[in-house]
């Protein structure tokens, strides 16, 4: 898989060159520690999605050092299903203790379950849902910080 991802990164991956560099986004198996190192070594950024529970956070705690050891330039935790200030605080303090930057905070959003029940994409079911807005913030973060050093913030 690394071979394919590596190739997609170097060419334009079959994308339209006029629109700029192709974004390759891989929804990984649960945790990068299960993947061969060769698979993930060549990514520009890892987003580690975590819920405000200890076992979920522990996964971040195990993944982050590996990602950094592999030299991945950007390693961010993304807080998900956050219902309260307390939830956010739990994630922020765990990440601070483990030296992991929080790249986004996505609130608990009923629209996700509702969309899922209907087998629809959240983007189609409720494009203005709070979770979509929060993920938009992660897109900003990526455009402004990742991508061949030519920041894409101007594209917004």
């Amino acid at each position, binding site marked *: *898989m690394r071979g394919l991802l590596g190739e997609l990164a170097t060419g334009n991956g079959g994308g339209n060159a006029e629109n700029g560099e192709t974004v390759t*986004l891989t929804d990984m198996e649960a945790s990068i520690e299960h993947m061969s190192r060769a698979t993930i070594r060549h990514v520009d950024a*890892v*987003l580690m999605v975590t819920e405000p529970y200890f076992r979920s956070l522990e996964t971040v705690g195990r993944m982050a050092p590996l990602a950094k050891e592999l030299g991945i330039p950007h390693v961010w935790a*993304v807080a998900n299903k956050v219902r309260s200030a307390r939830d956010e605080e739990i994630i922020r303090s765990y990440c601070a203790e483990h030296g992991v930057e929080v790249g986004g905070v*996505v609130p608990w959003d009923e629209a996700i379950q509702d969309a899922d029940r209907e087998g629809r994409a959240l983007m189609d079911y409720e494009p203005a849902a709070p979770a979509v807005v929060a993920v938009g913030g992660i897109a900003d973060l990526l*455009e402004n910080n990742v991508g061949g050093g030519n920041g894409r913030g101007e594209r917004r």
Partner: protein
Amino acid sequence: MKLAVAGKGGSGKTTISATLSRLLARRGHPVMAVDGDPNPNLSVALGMSREQRESLMRVPKDIMEMKEEGDARRLVMTRPVEEVTSEYAVEGPDGVSLMVMTGVDHAGAG
């Protein structure tokens, strides 16, 4: 830009992957989404139609092989990447392309 989204099962990584893919595509980026989960459901989260989902074939393992290079091993493509994407990638909403991988070899190069 190459991104990997990871997280414990049930953490919501697939919803975030799909939403992020759609948003980046709407901002003008060509997006290739790759489903690397052994229980793939990114296609539904992306909002692909039944027809689009039914046309998805998993990318077979034999498009890559392990090469020994001294004491290192690495995965190399056995076919040109353009050929693989044109055969296996399916375009969905907002122009996001999706490829679904076959179970990743855990015994791969460490």
